[in-house]
């Protein structure tokens, strides 16, 4: 850090001379971000945005704020309008109706030329990387700088810094086809950050990557978000991705926002049905023998199967032990997990009760319903073992 400060000229608010050190870039990036005086820390503000393709309503009256410095996750089934939404943020898609305020200006009515200037301050990374195959890694990262008219002497330093930030310094003169997928996405990230964007848009950045690479890319995004205070909007199919990096999440269905909230809240207490189904795949499943044997009605000699979830501080409560003591029943644990989302615990148990009979089943249900965050009667199954 000290190497930068010696050369920092407060008069012109610029570096008197470029000293290549990765901190320089960070300080400069911080500076750029601070200079943008977006009211009350809102970097993007969508107001009643709608967009149709023929008869398909891709976006239906979306209203949404993105706060500076946050990582906003967007989830939803394919075709829900996620890509269309994110593409509205940099004007790749023009909405039919509504306002898209980015960095303090409505970009919907902007002419193409002005829109290009706005896009220069928004980075984007893609599922399939979209690196230019005829250009080397360094040339790919240079391109946004060239487009933003950064003088060439400066470009070189920036590119070196960016490549070292994403751990790709050694591959500057390699062509993208020689890189692994994870490396390609790292270059994609370096390229997206090249022109000091105020906002980074990510359309399924890890969907083409294996789980391990996914984690390293997410770490990188998280790190960039923390270090540069960069705002990130991230589309993903993978709930693990969301859980590890996002601060807030919106759930889209048929072009509408059906749920919105902090990630821990949405994960521990999802409200919309879609969210349940999207996240449901994440909580562990029952063994197939039980799943296929489940019936809705109780018959003599069948076991009751319940799923209960405890979130937040309740996750530490010995609910099952209390139940055993108070009702004198013996729950069999079929499945159990405790996860932590943004430091909020979520405990999930699937338990069976041997042939409880109708009356006891109801008492168990009432007892648990008042003590757990969420209770689900999965059904009855013939004699477990």
């Amino acid at each position, binding site marked *: 850090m000290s190497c930068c400060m010696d050369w920092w000229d407060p008069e012109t608010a610029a570096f008197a001379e470029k000293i290549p050190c990765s901190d320089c870039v960070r300080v400069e990036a911080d500076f750029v971000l601070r200079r943008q005086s977006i009211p009350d820390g809102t970097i993007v503000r969508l107001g009643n945005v709608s967009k149709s393709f023929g008869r398909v309503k891709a976006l239906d009256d979306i209203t949404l704020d993105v706060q500076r410095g946050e990582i906003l996750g967007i989830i939803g089934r394919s075709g829900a309008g996620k890509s269309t939404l994110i593409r509205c943020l940099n004007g790749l898609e023009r909405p039919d109706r509504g306002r898209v305020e980015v960095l303090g200006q409505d970009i919907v009515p902007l002419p193409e030329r002005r829109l*290009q200037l706005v896009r220069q301050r928004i980075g984007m990374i*893609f599922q399939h990387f979209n690196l230019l195959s005829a250009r080397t890694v360094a040339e790919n990262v240079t391109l946004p700088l060239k487009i933003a008219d950064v003088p060439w002497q400066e470009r070189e330093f920036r590119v070196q810094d960016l490549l070292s930030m994403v751990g790709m310094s050694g591959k500057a003169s390699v062509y993208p086809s020689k890189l692994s997928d994870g490396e390609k996405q790292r270059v994609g990230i370096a390229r997206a950050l090249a022109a000091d964007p105020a906002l980074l848009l990510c359309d399924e950045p890890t969907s083409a990557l294996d789980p391990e690479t996914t984690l390293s890319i997410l770490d990188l995004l998280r790190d960039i978000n923390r270090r540069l205070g960069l705002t990130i909007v991230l589309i993903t199919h993978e709930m693990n991705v969301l859980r590890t990096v996002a601060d807030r999440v919106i759930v889209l269905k048929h072009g509408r926002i059906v749920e919105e909230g902090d990630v821990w809240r949405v994960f521990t207490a999802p409200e919309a049905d879609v969210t349940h189904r999207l996240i449901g795949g994440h909580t562990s499943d029952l063994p197939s023998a039980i799943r296929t044997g489940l019936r809705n009605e109780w018959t003599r000699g069948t076991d009751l199967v319940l799923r209960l979830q405890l979130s937040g501080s309740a996750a530490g409560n010995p609910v099952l032990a209390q139940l055993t003591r108070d009702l004198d029943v013996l729950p069999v644990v079929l499945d159990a997990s405790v996860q932590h989302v943004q430091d909020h615990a979520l405990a999930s148990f699937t338990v069976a009760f041997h042939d409880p009979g109708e009356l006891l089943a109801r008492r168990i249900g009432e007892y648990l319903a008042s003590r757990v965050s969420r209770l689900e009667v999965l059904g009855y199954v013939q004699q477990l073992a």
Partner: protein
Amino acid sequence: MSSNWPDLFIKALLETLEMTAAAGAIAFLAGLPLGLVLVATASGGICEQRWLNRILGAIVNAFRAVPCIVLLVALIPLTRLIAGTSIGTEAAIVPLAIAATPYYARTAEVSLRGVDHGLIEAVKAMGGSRWTIMREALVPEALPGLLSGFTVTIVTIIGASAMAGAIGAGGLGDLAIRYGYQRFNTGIMIGIIIVLIALVSIVRFGGDCLARRFDHR
């Protein structure tokens, strides 16, 4: 066999090379932009202009539909207007270039259309203008295809220039007709065939090397 046949041969070869090079250069310089315009104005292109695209496409198709030899004859009035004469090597360049330009434009269009739309999108997302997209993404990414398409165009021009010999264009085709056909000189005929094969092979080989050199996919 006349004693000066090596001279005749060299002269004819040079004429063929001159016609091919000149017509090829014009076809490249006019055909590549035409191909770019065809791709850019197509629906979903970076500069959608459906009517312009349809009109240009129709013109290109019309030229491509007319057989080369017919075009050579049909363009004689225009050739006279541009070159001042309809006979000779220089005069033949006009119809050859006019025939080769739409041909190359279509080949270029196919290569340019093959560029992954995601790359265009990426440059657009960086804030690149249409011109930047063409310069930084479309042309460099399509370059291997543009080069091999150009090779094919050159080979086609070599063939057409030989045909142009039939209507007084000079070159190897003219030599073949005067000595091989009218005087039944089998030696000259075989020589011309060998030279043409060699010429086409060299062009192909050079073109393939270049295309491979620029292919980093």
